[in-house]
């Protein structure tokens, strides 16, 4: 009976959208950084597009978050308050008006969003100046790229950890949500780069096929994380688990889950890529697979959050 008493934050679609874009931005950024470290010239297209996408995708982030707040003018309270209270939790670090609560993923996430945005802006600016015929400040790109890469991973994963640190029955014993959200960020980041490159008719066939190879790998991880999530929840045997899981797997959200998140988002694009598309990297095929990955990447986050929040 316990779970019947629990309440839900009722985070709306705006938040799902932020989680999706944040993951996508983080994923695209990490891919660009790794490609840049390996061979900046050879992977120039991937690096450029990855950094541009990361920057553009993160711009709506703070706006979505602020709009959702009960008191939007107090967004900055996530990081600072003029008169902080003394005892605000066992994991709190305070310096003057600033605070960071290590065990509150929402607090840490707000800081990560700030850090990531700064790095994404710097790197995108550097790419932009280079596009305009200037010279890349490679040291800046390297440093901001690596630091931003860590923030990018964080940004992709923390919403899952945040959900896991609520009392909602579907989330509290899930443990794999952070990992799942992280790999979804990786697959959607890779897919976003591939989609744009193939639409632009990029000459870089080679990078495109390598990108698709990477997203195929990320999709396999995504499938594994999804399975581990369900198995872990199932085996926890906590109160209310059966009903919570049934909502996702057999109830009102099952269609979006099985058809949307699993078939459209993972199985079909994987089949498209493994069935030859990956070698030839035909732009049409790549674009289609990438678009499906993006749709699935949004749906998997949306459907898990919706099912977990439903009472």
């Amino acid at each position, binding site marked *: 009976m*316990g779970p019947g*008493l*629990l*309440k*839900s*934050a009722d985070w709306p679609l705006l938040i799902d959208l932020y989680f999706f874009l944040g993951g996508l931005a983080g994923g695209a950024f*990490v*891919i660009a950084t*790794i*490609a840049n470290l*390996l061979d900046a010239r050879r*992977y120039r297209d991937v690096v450029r597009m990855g950094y541009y996408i990361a920057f553009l995708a993160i711009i709506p982030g703070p706006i979505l978050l602020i709009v959702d*707040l*009960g*008191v*939007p003018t*107090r967004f900055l*309270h*996530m990081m600072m*308050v003029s008169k902080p*209270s003394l*005892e*605000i*939790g*066992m*994991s*709190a670090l305070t310096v003057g008006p600033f605070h960071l*609560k*290590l*065990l*509150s993923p*929402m607090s840490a996430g*707000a800081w990560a969003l700030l850090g990531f945005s700064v790095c994404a802006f710097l790197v995108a600016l550097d790419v932009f100046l280079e596009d305009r015929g200037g010279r890349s400040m490679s040291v800046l790109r390297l440093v901001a790229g690596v630091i931003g890469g860590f923030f990018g*991973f964080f940004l992709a*994963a923390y919403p899952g*950890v945040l959900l*896991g*640190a609520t*009392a*909602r029955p579907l989330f*509290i014993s899930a*443990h794999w949500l*952070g*990992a799942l*959200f*992280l*790999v979804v960020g*990786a697959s959607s980041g890779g897919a976003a780069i591939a989609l744009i490159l193939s639409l632009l008719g990029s000459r870089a*066939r*080679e990078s495109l*096929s*390598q990108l698709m190879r*990477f997203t195929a790998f*990320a999709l396999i*991880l995504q499938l594994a*994380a999804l399975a581990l999530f369900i198995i872990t929840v199932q085996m926890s045997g906590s*109160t209310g688990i059966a009903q919570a899981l049934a909502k996702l797997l057999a109830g009102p959200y099952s269609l979006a889950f099985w058809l949307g998140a699993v078939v459209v988002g993972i199985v079909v694009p994987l089949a498209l*890529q*493994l069935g030859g598309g*990956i070698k030839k990297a035909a732009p049409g095929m790549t674009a289609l697979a990438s678009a499906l990955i993006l749709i699935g990447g949004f749906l998997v986050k949306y459907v898990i959050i919706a099912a977990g929040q439903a009472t």
Partner: protein
Amino acid sequence: MARTLAMFTDVSLCIGCRACQVACKQWNQLAPEEPEWTGSYQNHAHFTDKTYRLVRFFEETDATGQMKQWHMMSDVCKHCAQAGCLEACPTGAIYRTEYGTVNINQDICNGCRYCVSACPFGVVAFNHDTGTATKCTFCNDRIHNGLGPACAKACPTESIRFGFRDELAGKAKQRVEELKKLGYKDAQLYGEDTNGALGGLNAFFLLLGKPSIYGLPDKPKLPQRNVIADSLLSIGSALLVGLGALVAFRSRDDKGGA
């Protein structure tokens, strides 16, 4: 820190009169709400932004579905020693007072609603008018002026008692023994043990049966306990993703395969 204050609710004394619920509304000036039909005397079904104190009614049935016993329990925020709401709150609006109680500073809360989903008991409620989260404060203004919370003052049977935690805990244990002698063999304390779940509850209860009869979780868990394990799994997957990217971009196109 001053001596911890606590509330002890003895359900064996509750007569379901809801004087506490009314007193809470009056003192905290909480607006009226539409009554809710819950199928029993209970009104409302849940804590809301206008109901911080709620008398719950439960009908315990036996295996054949016959009514066995009628339970009443006046429920409230537990002011947990390890509070999910407080640990979740990203703004620091939720804080612990010198008496060990848990409060929400309405001038700091920005309405993110994380606390609402992080409370293991479904206590915190979001107020759409103010855009902030609210809950019982043990009547913070009263206890800082030497008055007990309004509910405890109003309770005519002393089912709700307020005082120093250590003293109340002693009385509670005695009362369990008395009840056991009277034949209530399932009488038990919930949340009294400071080594137990959530480090003990500063609003603890004497129940006449299993916690689940009262809709309470047997072993409430602090949701933030998950953060470290879940983060480690995330880091593991980040390493895999990074490795995958390295391998994918190192490979030559002509080799093919994933």
